[in-house]
């Protein structure tokens, strides 16, 4: 049959169309003609018509009306038509189409055809679009072909079997014996197919995996043959003999050697040989080396071999070819957890790759650099990462920023460095950071008490330079509001102080308030900061008053509400203003309401400055009556009763401001002061956690330090009999660390005349909700008692 002229004519015509519309017209005409032809009787051109339709399909036009024609052509005795019919089936039919079932019979017949080329067509199509039912139907045929046919068919049958196993894993058992025998073939194509088939079988069935471990020596032999053989023209690629087969065998060895010492030992020599003898100047050699390295790292190889593998990866890192650098970093990423030190040695090169032009390489280098951060290299590595952040492609910025934050949080050498780093990130990439950054940074700043002066100076400078980065502006406003007095004092140890006047500061805040660039939340921050300054500055209070009253009619409801309330503070409740706006206590990361407290709800924040966060069951009995008056004055917020412990937990340096405030408040604040004294030295309340058979266990928490907590357990015995051998065991959630000190004793005298105390130190670095299970065991009157009690809540001023 001469080459399909009619097909080429049509293609020429379609390509000649100058516009999309013209092309559509041509194609519609052609499709109509094709449809008409399909309906006609056989005229010797059926395969051409289907081929035309397939071309049209590739351009993206609908061609489903050709499906039945495919079925017809496949059943034709003519090879031309079968060939195009099968091609059509692979392109137009997939397992979801109903018509695909119609060709099952044809395929079955063709699998036993006398011509191997027809057989191969059927095998190819089955492997391409065979559904599960078709696979089940035809599996025995494939198995037969795997055993008794020539190499040409065997290799195709092997891959067809692979398809069947992937579609219907249970049929794997059917192919296992045939697969085993195929390994002794000499033909590379068949061998390759057999290796793939065995790989699939082993991946899906652990028993088969066990079975095939026995063939490791055979595979090693084959591999050795390939590596040591001389030049073979048929299989040679750039000096490597059949790299495709080599890579496949290495992959199979990887699966067989994983978690198995015996198999791994058997392949150690071979892997060393391949690693040293393979020439990696061309891609083919590098591909084989790459696969070898992956295999070495995945099996139980000896340490010398692992070192060799990591060195190969290191060599790849220095390669000029970008592709090789890329895959080297991909592999290093996989092993950075297990062989951390080995990878650390290459840190310099990896960091250099951050500066590569290519986006893929940059991404890999970033991932790897973040994985390599440790306490030792944090300073130098962070410099590189910050440099990278300023020039990195936009799609990587968010990831880089959050990676830097994580690293800084884990390994920062000092608080000042930590704050500096976060500020640097906010100035470079403020738009790409996550929302929690602002509250996290604020929390960090409050804990670094000695750095308040330094921080506020730095932030002020950043604010007057640029007000477009919202996160930075929000933090800066908050700091200026809180520590404005430190800023105005004009002296600072850590950094060159800025000489500002009150007007300058208020100007800066007003700019933020009025700028179009500021988001609504940012303006809220700025307004609250302005308000806070009213107690920290001396001269321009009137200016603040006017700003606040202007915003009382702002369109933004949030700002309006704030302004109105601040106005009220100025007018009606001026005597309370100082107390309301005093310094915030140190925010502890432990508190569950932590993020609530950091919300941009400025008004609530003010209230929270004199109250504890919600959700904390604080036992405050005394202050309630005294605080009631406060309650009325501020319009009845129900969160107020939890006022005092917050004050008591830190040294509020501006409680003294209240001295000058109106007389009626003096008592209240004095009362609060009293409560300060009362609560602090008072022993923490102890809670009864266990009371059975006369044995009681009380729990008492002492003041926590950071993430640590001291719990004291006290046991008493109210029965008439002495108890001996009293012991406590405790268990806590996984991330919490527990240290039990020695108990005071193990004997509990009767009738509560003595007690046993035991101190338990807890460290909760991840701030998970703390639970503890305590097992009590003792012997009384000759019998042993054991009991368990779970403690879900810890009382007392535990979680400020």
């Amino acid at each position, binding site marked *: 049959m001469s080459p399909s002229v009619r*097909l080429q004519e049509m293609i020429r015509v379609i390509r000649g169309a100058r516009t999309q519309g013209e092309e559509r017209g041509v194609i519609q005409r052609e499709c109509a003609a094709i449809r008409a032809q399909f309906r006609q009787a*056989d005229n*010797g051109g059926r395969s051409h018509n289907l081929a035309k339709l397939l071309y049209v399909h*590739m351009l993206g036009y609908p061609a489903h009306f050709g499906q039945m024609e495919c079925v017809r052509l496949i059943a034709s005795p003519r090879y031309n038509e079968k060939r195009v019919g099968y091609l059509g089936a692979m392109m137009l039919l997939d397992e979801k189409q109903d018509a695909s079932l119609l060709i099952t019979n044809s395929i079955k017949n063709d699998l036993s055809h006398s011509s191997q080329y027809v057989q191969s067509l059927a095998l190819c199509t089955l492997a391409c679009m065979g559904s599960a039912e078709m696979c089940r139907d035809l599996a025995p045929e494939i198995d037969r072909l795997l055993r008794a046919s020539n190499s040409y068919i065997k290799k195709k049958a092997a*891959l067809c079997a692979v398809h069947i196993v992937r579609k219907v894993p249970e049929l794997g058992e059917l192919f296992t014996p045939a697969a085993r025998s195929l390994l002794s073939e000499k033909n590379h194509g068949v061998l390759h197919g057999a290796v793939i088939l065995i790989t699939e079988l082993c991946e899906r069935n652990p028993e088969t995996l066990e079975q095939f471990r026995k063939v490791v020596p055979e595979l090693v032999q084959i591999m050795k043959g390939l590596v040591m053989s001389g030049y073979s023209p*048929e299989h040679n690629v750039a000096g490597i003999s059949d790299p*495709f087969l080599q890579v496949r065998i290495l992959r199979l060895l990887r699966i067989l050697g994983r978690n198995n010492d015996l198999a791994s030992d058997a392949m150690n020599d071979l892997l060393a040989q391949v690693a040293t003898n393979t020439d990696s100047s061309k891609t083919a050699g590098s*591909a084989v080396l790459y*696969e070898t390295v992956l295999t070495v790292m995945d099996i139980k190889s000896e340490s010398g071999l692992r070192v060799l593998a990591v060195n190969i990866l290191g060599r790849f890192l220095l390669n000029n070819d970008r592709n090789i650098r*890329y895959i080297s970093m991909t592999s290093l990423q996989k092993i950075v957890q297990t062989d951390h030190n080995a990878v650390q040695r290459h840190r310099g090169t990896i960091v250099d790759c951050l500066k590569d032009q290519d986006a893929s390489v940059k991404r890999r280098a970033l991932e790897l650099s973040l994985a390599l951060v440790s306490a030792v290299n944090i300073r130098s590595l962070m410099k590189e990462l910050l440099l990278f952040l300023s020039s990195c492609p936009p799609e990587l910025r968010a990831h880089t920023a959050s990676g830097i934050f994580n690293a800084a949080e884990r390994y920062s050498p000092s608080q000042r460095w930590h704050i500096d780093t976060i500020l640097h990130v906010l100035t470079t990439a403020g738009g790409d950071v996550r929302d929690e950054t602002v509250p996290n940074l604020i929390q960090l700043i409050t804990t670094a008490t000695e750095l308040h002066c330094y921080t506020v100076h730095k932030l002020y400078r950043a604010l007057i330079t640029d007000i477009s980065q919202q996160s930075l502006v929000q933090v800066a406003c908050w700091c200026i509001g809180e520590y404005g007095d430190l800023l105005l004092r004009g002296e600072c140890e850590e950094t060159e102080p800025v000489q500002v006047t009150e007007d300058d500061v208020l100007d800066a805040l007003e700019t933020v308030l009025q700028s179009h660039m500021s988001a609504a939340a940012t303006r809220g921050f700025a307004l609250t900061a302005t308000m806070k300054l009213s107690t920290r500055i001396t001269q321009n209070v009137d200016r603040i008053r006017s700003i606040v009253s202007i915003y009382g009619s702002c369109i933004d409801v949030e700002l309006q509400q704030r302004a109105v309330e601040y106005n009220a503070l100025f007018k009606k409740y001026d005597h309370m203003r100082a107390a309301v706006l005093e310094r915030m206590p140190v925010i502890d990361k432990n508190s569950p309401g932590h993020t609530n407290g950091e919300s941009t709800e400025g008004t609530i924040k003010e209230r929270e400055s004199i109250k504890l966060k919600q959700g904390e069951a604080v036992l405050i009995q005394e202050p309630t009556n005294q605080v009631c008056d406060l309650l009325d004055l501020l319009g009845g917020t129900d969160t107020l009763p939890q006022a005092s412990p917050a004050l008591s937990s830190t040294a509020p340096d501006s409680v003294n401001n209240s001295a000058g405030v109106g007389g009626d408040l003096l008592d209240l604040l004095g009362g609060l002061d009293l409560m300060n004294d009362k609560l602090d030295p008072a022993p923490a309340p102890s809670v009864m956690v266990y009371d059975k058979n006369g044995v009681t266990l009380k729990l008492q928490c002492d003041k926590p330090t950071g993430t640590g907590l001291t719990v004291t357990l006290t046991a008493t015995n109210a029965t008439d009999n002495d108890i001996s051998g009293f012991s406590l065991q405790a268990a806590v959630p996984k991330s919490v660390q527990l240290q039990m000190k020695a108990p005071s004793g193990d004997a509990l005298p009767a009738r509560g005349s003595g007690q046993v105390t035991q101190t338990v130190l807890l460290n909760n670095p991840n701030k998970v909700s703390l639970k503890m299970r305590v097992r009590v065991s003792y012997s009384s009157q000759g019998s042993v008692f054991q009991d368990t009690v779970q403690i879900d809540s810890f009382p007392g001023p535990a979680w400020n």
Partner: protein
Amino acid sequence: MMHFLLLFSRQGKLRLQKWFTPLPDREKKKVIRDMTLMVLARPPRSCNFLQWRDLKIVYKRYASLYFCCGLEDQDNELLTLEVLHRYVELLDKYFGNVCELDIIFNFEKAYFILDEFLMEGEILETSKKAVGTSIEEADSQQETMEEYMSKPTY
């Protein structure tokens, strides 16, 4: 295994598509669109590997055609570059100095050659000579006009 193999021109016109996993038509169109956009946007001397969804994408440009395939996680990217190169060599041997027009006007032959080289997303035959021979022999099976008309119709 390879999930798909696409050939497209610098203008984004598809010249060949081979799918080794069953996908609905809509999904196929989406993949083609994504691949075309991603690969054509790459600067000239960049790395040939990309990450897309959970697949590794390997692409290589030969003259005016881009060869692009999607791989699974355990597949060897460097070897896939060799696979693409081998396919180009096979086309070159068959058509004699192959160019894009050859593949456009003889797309069905390009598919036949591909089917002798790759199957089920894996390499079928590792010897260049063997693939060439089987194509020739299969072509010789194609009937002449007389043989064609003498065979019974179906």
